[in-house]
């Protein structure tokens, strides 16, 4: 029994570790205004994994004497801290009402979970059951991944004509567009439907590689393809 549980722990840790490195959303704190902290103040390292890494590399001693900014309220060492989820919450937020935004996103997760668990119980065979993804967070990850555009059209004005020139897109911008589109699609809803429900549906659709947002991405790709003749024109 004891052995079993230890084994289990190990496996779980492995899972967790892999889950961490699969995705990498950098969350820089870029301040719009000057903070009260000078530039040489370092950003805090608040994740236990990061701290463990530091200890492993024995870089902790370097940081010992360096002044550090206090962590923001959302920068926690909680097991469920997730940079992408936090980013989505920040996108949902309006007028700085973070608590509301957080509760909306969490309700959407709850809805996803309920829908998926229901599907799971409805499924007949074990095969089908295994196919259903129950973790709302990984559904979010899949949805965002599926909505990320690969190309962008940048308007370039030459000779009075604005050409839409296709080109590659940076990772950061594609992430931004993906979340933005998801939210735009969610907000384009009936007044009687609540945000969490609609968001849950959109996420499930997108994770399934269907739905409005994926179509929007494909439309963009189509347009890029149509304009590919201009791609060579990259005037100075």
């Amino acid at each position: 029994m004891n052995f079993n549980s230890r084994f289990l722990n190990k496996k779980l840790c492995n899972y967790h570790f892999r889950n961490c490195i699969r995705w990498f959303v950098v969350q820089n704190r870029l301040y719009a205004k000057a903070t009260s902290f000078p530039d040489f103040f370092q950003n805090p390292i608040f994740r236990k994994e990061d701290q463990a890494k530091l200890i492993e590399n024995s870089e902790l001693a370097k940081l010992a004497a360096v002044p550090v900014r206090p962590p923001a309220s959302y920068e926690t060492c909680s097991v469920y801290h997730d940079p992408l989820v936090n980013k989505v919450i920040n996108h949902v937020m309006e007028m700085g009402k973070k608590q509301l935004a957080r509760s909306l996103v969490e309700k959407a997760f709850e809805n996803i979970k309920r829908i998926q668990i229901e599907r799971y119980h409805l499924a007949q065979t074990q095969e089908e059951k295994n196919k259903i993804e129950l973790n709302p967070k990984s559904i979010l990850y899949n949805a965002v991944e599926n909505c990320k555009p690969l190309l962008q059209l940048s308007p370039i004005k030459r000779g009075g004509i604005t050409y839409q020139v296709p080109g590659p897109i940076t990772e950061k911008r594609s992430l931004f567009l993906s979340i933005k589109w998801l939210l735009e699609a969610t907000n384009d809803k009936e007044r009687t439907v609540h945000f969490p429900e609609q968001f849950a549906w959109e996420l499930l659709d997108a994770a399934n590689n269907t739905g409005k947002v994926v179509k929007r991405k494909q439309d963009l790709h189509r347009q890029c393809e149509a304009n590919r003749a201009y791609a060579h024109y990259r005037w100075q």
Partner: protein
Amino acid sequence: MRFNTTLFSAANQANSRRPQKDPVPFQMLLPLELGKTVSGKGDKLKEAVCMQEMAVMFACFKKTEFNQQECLNEVASFQTCFNNYNDKMKLSREQGRKGILVPGEKTLTHRQLNKLLRRFPPKK
């Protein structure tokens, strides 16, 4: 009839709005020699990158009705190409910013040029 003589006189200190008379005399505002530095205005370079990969990807997209899932290889190659380009640009930008001179490099950033100019100032 009164003749407005002022119309025909050249601009001077008293009245700067008078029309100029040809030939306009040359005024030497700055010394006639090359500057010691160059500005960085012309450094913004936009080049079309990964054209090949993009074309391959478009071809695949067209074949599969824009289903990304079936063109994973093409997409990956396009993205690695762009990422490599980005990394390269980042490196060169960083070197340029520091002004590190790479021997044999033909295209120099303004910082690198300025470094060279400072070392070998233009002769008077």
